[in-house]
């Protein structure tokens, strides 16, 4: 039940376009006691159905820059293979520390980011 509640909270946050995943992972690690890598895989898997639903809506509104999508996705996938292989092979204690450093930078970015009012009514679907 606790896990469902954590998912609920992260769903709300990502629906607002504030990195839900970056908070879901530490929540799982600290509250549920999940291993760092497992928490990360949960975030990746949960993203897939929600992103598919969001994309369906965006595609119908022609919001996707298709030319750019293919160019970015090619090198993006290469990066994903390297990044994931690193994640599954790293010691989870070390990965947790590296993740913490990344989270710290993201936190500073969220606090210092300027008002993005125009985001309110348009693109909001979870960017994790």
């Amino acid at each position, binding site marked *: 039940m606790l896990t469902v509640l954590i998912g609920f909270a992260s769903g709300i946050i990502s629906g607002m376009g504030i990195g839900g995943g970056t*908070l879901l992972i530490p929540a799982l690690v600290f509250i549920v006691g999940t291993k760092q890598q497992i928490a990360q895989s949960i975030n990746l898997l949960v993203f897939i159905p929600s992103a598919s639903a969001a994309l369906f809506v965006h595609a119908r509104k022609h*919001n996707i820059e298709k030319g750019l999508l293919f160019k970015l996705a090619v090198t993006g996938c290469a990066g994903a293979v390297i990044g994931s292989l690193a994640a599954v092979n790293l010691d989870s204690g070390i990965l947790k520390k590296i993740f913490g450093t990344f989270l710290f930078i993201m936190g500073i970015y969220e606090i210092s980011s300027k008002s993005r009012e125009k985001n309110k009514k348009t693109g909001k*679907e979870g960017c994790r």
Partner: protein
Amino acid sequence: MKNKNHLKTALIGFAAGLVNGIFGSGGGTILVPCLVFLMGIEDHKAHATAISIILPISLISSFIYFRYDVTDLSLTLKVAAGSVLGALFGSFVLNWVPINTLRKIFGMFMILAAIRMVF
């Protein structure tokens, strides 16, 4: 100049994939500002395009995590169920909440969690 743009695009994609793979999150946090500030894409289009890029990236990453047996399907299903409900709820209340204040509050949570993770 054109080559330079190609390189820039390639590097942004690679960075987003790398971060999203190693941390299981954060690809969007990199892509959206890059698309908006470096490539001049409108905000809502940047969000939509970012999701369309992170989807294949997440599929590949999930596959690798799965192959290395770092998954917990029952836990994932519980989080997913909560997350779908949360996203629906969130989209209803979206226009009634002060997003920028929340952004700062969550930013502080991130910093606190970050400190606990490192030390």
